């Protein structure tokens, strides 16, 4: 019988318009035989309608009607495919400057970022922004796909020049732990995407698909310190489960073990884990990001938003946070306004205490002219929260180190923040 792939890789794709992102994704799906016949037929029909002779693989990933009409992608779209070893989730994000928010969204859960560039143009302003955001969001691996190699006769010198440009820029990235890799490809013709190319004898690295299949990712977060944000409480009192109380949540970091001496923050109580339960059986240990129910030796009233941690491994508890901020809303940040800060299962009002810096979106250097954040702006702020927050720096834990800001009046998510 078919056996399930054993691991999961989430990746995001970014590129400027016409770099070939849609074609590349279409190519990955097509060459890995993840496309169904009726989808191919639909795309062939649509290609013909648009006057194309060949099947246009980019149409496989084109989405909503409005986008079709404009011929561009305007929102994050998710794609799925699997090889015998791995299941892949692609967050396909558009490359337009005004849609930086989509890239931030897609990157927030990604293990790997594919950044496309057209070998003829090399690194452009957009590429810098894509690299910067991927690095800012703490993506572990960044793969630079140097595309359209067919248009330069698969010339090694031009490829090397592009690699050189990117490597120099990489030294300036906010997060130096992201690893960069490069692949020379032709999305249109399939070179080095799934199948190794005969046109690049000078390239002895892996194809893009091999890289995706083999990259090590640590998204289980099991190596981290134990972090268990409480989502809710399950209480029942039946013959089978007399006076039952358990705390539910998804482990945000580390390993939870029966017998663990734990501390509850910000309440400051201590207790011991007596059991870890799921409907299909009790567990001796559970690891991030499993969703479980935890029972403690003491009957404690634990509201949503409290965090269970191991004694001695405690995160920071505080009400003043410094955030790297990505502003996502069309309405600029207004420091006079009330925002709700959501952090794991916790939500609290906050005020903006200081706008430290807003970056110039092109140079990614501080822009002294900018006094506040508008759509797609990146920068740093300090907020003060009404309730204490139990957090880690983002670079240590992407779950306990991230927040979103919600406009209290419109209820819209206006920003994503990473705790410094």
């Amino acid at each position, binding site marked *: *019988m*078919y056996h*399930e*792939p*054993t*691991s*999961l890789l989430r990746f995001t794709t970014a590129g400027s318009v016409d770099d070939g992102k849609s074609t590349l994704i279409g190519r990955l799906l097509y060459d890995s035989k993840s496309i*169904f*016949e009726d989808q191919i037929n639909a795309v062939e029909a649509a290609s013909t309608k648009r006057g194309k002779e060949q099947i246009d693989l980019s149409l496989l990933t*084109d*989405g*909503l*009607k*409005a986008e079709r009409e404009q011929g561009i992608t305007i*929102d*994050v779209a*998710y794609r799925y495919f*699997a090889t015998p070893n*791995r*299941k892949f989730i692609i967050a396909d994000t558009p490359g337009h400057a005004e849609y930086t*928010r989509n890239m*931030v*969204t897609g990157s*927030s859960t990604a293990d790997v970022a594919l950044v496309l560039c057209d070998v003829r143009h090399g690194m452009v302003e957009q590429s810098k922004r894509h690299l910067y955001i991927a690095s800012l969001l703490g993506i572990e691996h960044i793969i630079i796909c140097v595309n359209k190699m067919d248009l330069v006769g698969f010339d090694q010198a031009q490829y090397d020049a592009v690699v050189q440009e990117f490597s120099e820029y990489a030294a300036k990235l906010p997060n130096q732990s992201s690893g960069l890799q490069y692949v020379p490809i032709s999305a249109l013709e399939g070179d080095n995407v799934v199948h190794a190319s005969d046109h690049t004898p000078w390239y002895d690295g892996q194809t893009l698909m091999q890289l995706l299949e083999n990259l*090590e990712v*640590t*998204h289980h977060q*099991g*190596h981290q310190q134990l972090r268990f944000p409480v*989502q*809710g409480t*399950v209480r*029942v009192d039946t013959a089978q*489960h007399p006076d039952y109380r358990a705390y*539910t949540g*998804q482990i945000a970091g580390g*390993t939870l073990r029966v017998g663990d001496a734990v501390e509850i923050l910000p309440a400051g109580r201590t207790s011991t884990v007596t059991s870890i339960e*799921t*409907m*299909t059986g009790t567990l001796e240990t559970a*690891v991030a*990001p*499993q*969703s479980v*129910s935890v029972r403690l030796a003491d009957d404690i009233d634990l509201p*949503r938003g409290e965090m269970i941690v191991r004694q001695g491994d405690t995160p920071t508890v505080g009400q003043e946070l410094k955030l790297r901020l990505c502003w*996502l809303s069309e309405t600029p940040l207004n420091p006079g306004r009330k925002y*709700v800060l*959501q952090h*794991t*299962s916790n939500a609290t009002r906050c005020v903006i205490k200081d706008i430290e810096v807003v970056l110039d979106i092109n140079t990614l250097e501080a822009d002294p002219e900018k006094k506040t954040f508008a759509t797609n702006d990146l920068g740093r702020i300090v907020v003060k929260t009404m309730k204490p927050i139990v957090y880690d720096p983002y670079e240590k834990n992407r*779950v306990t180190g*991230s*927040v*979103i800001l*919600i406009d209290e009046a419109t*209820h*819209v*998510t206006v920003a*994503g923040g990473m705790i410094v």
Partner: protein
Amino acid sequence: MTKNTPSLTHLQLIEAESIHMIREVAAQFEKPVIMFSGGKDSITMLHLCRKAFWPAPVPFPLLHIDTGHNFPETLAFRDNLVEEFGLKLIVGSVQASIDKGTAVEETGKDASRIRLQTVSLLEALEAHGFDCALGGARRDEEKARAKERFFSHRDEFGQWHPRHQRPELWRMYNGRRNVGEHFRAFPLSNWTEMDIWQYIYKEEIAIPSLYFAHDRECVVRNGIILSNSEHLPPVADETPQVMQVRFRTIGDMTCTGAVASDADTLEKIIDEVATTRTTERGARADDRRSETSLEDRKREGYF
């Protein structure tokens, strides 16, 4: 990564993500409801809801929009499930909407009640004051679904605005809303058809017999194998024939296509899905009306 970290399979990872999201629904909304079609996806979603709150009962009722053209097997299965797990069932009826005059029956040989379901669904959500409707839709099903959020905001008319969706970052979901607005929540967003089958197999989840190969009287229309029944408008010169088939999705009898198959066990179904070259929804006459038909329905407030 340290060596002794046990690694989780992709099924464990998406299960954990879904359970977390379902618990967020319970925490952030006052009156959620499960949109239950009786198909494998909503059955899987219900299973995840049971896991999310065990040993407490599922804190949401089920809402089934009955087109009046359901497979009898689906209804029997639904009623058993409700009984077995002590659930509350609410049935919204398309026939009732037609009788009231809020929905108008389509006519002709391709007539279907699919679009009318939206009317009955929105009526039921409003009548009961549900502020969040959990759906079993998956992003891999259709291109319009690929851009759907986990928590999807609907305006006071129940409409979806794909261009103005709230960004969804990390694993934080924002369910804040104004009075009169509601949300759709899709815990199976990241599941594929294969994931669902593997999970049903692994968790031993019961599903309706329609999914397994069986003999059935069918007609073939526009290349789609449809179950013959009194609900199917007859077409001249068409002779129903008994075929060995199974269903990959279960919807309205008038437009859910069957596939010729001898897969009568979960193992065989999984093998079949692994080698199949057409999408699940490809066999649904309702999605074939135009290139964007599902997207158009979704904007109006369809599941």
